[in-house]
């Protein structure tokens, strides 16, 4: 089983117009069983420059995401894939909310079935977005995070 990976990006950007207003830190957990999707989403988040320090971790399924929280990690945003082996996104979201995790949990799925998406959302998502994620979609999540502070 792949262990969760961590990446820290120093978001200091001398060209950023709003560097004085930038949040200090953003921590994101990318949960997806597909290595390609994890790589792309990790890169999108790291390039965003929405915080002075951006910390990204990845997990390959819902159980790994749970284990990270049980070991004391916490995140501002969790990008949760729906269909994963071992523990899917719906189950993982339910468990995280039952544990008292209040992070923004965003479902990310290419699923077509409305019923599946509804069950996923009802498990405790803040939002459900269609794959593939884009820089604009993630920026909008951070803006929502800021508004709800």
């Amino acid at each position, binding site marked *: 089983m792949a262990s969760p990976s961590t990446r820290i990006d120093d978001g200091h950007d001398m060209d950023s117009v709003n560097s004085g207003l930038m949040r200090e830190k953003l921590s994101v957990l990318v949960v997806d069983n*597909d290595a390609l999707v994890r790589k*792309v989403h990790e890169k999108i988040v790291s390039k965003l420059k929405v915080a002075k320090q951006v910390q990204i971790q990845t997990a390959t399924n819902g159980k790994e995401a749970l284990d990270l929280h049980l070991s004391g990690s916490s995140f501002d945003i969790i990008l949760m894939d729906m*269909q994963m082996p071992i523990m899917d996104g719906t189950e993982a979201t339910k468990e995280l909310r039952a544990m008292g995790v209040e992070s923004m949990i965003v479902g990310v799925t290419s699923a077509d079935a409305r019923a599946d998406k509804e069950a996923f959302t009802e498990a405790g998502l803040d939002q459900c977005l269609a*794959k593939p994620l884009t820089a604009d979609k993630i920026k909008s999540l951070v803006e929502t995070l800021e508004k709800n502070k």
Partner: protein
Amino acid sequence: MRASLEGEKQQTDQSMDGGLMQMQRRLAEYRNALFKEGILDSQYLQLQELQDESNPDFVVEVVSLFFTDSEKLLNDLSRDLAQQNVDFKRVDAHVHQLKGSSSSIGAEKVKNACIVFRNFCQEKNIPGCLRCLQQIKQEFLLVKSKLETLFKLEQQVVAAGGSIPTVQQPIL
């Protein structure tokens, strides 16, 4: 003599620049055609925008991952559909993964073929699934061949001293 040598150097530089410009034009035309033919969609441009000096091979790395993962998934699907009792849940999971990864790199035709495949999975229609699998294999081989050619053209431009411009919008 010096004037003659300088003149020759100027001519050589001009023909090299002309050669580079021709390569860059050919690259741009080839890339535009991929978008026009629906082989790639705007998600591929997102990947290009993610590439920078800190990770100059990002697109090639991601696309190579797509090639490797897809080949494995297609082999798994062939095996799954050859079983006496087809596990459609397993088949659907594989197609779902292929749909996700193809949409992440902008392989539009592969993604669309996966959508049709999933419908046949839900109907538990084996002949339909087999036809879809053939279609996906064809679309995958097509996008693989096109992207490999695209990367070769990009390498030629870079080797000739040029740079690869980022396409902001495909010219359709």
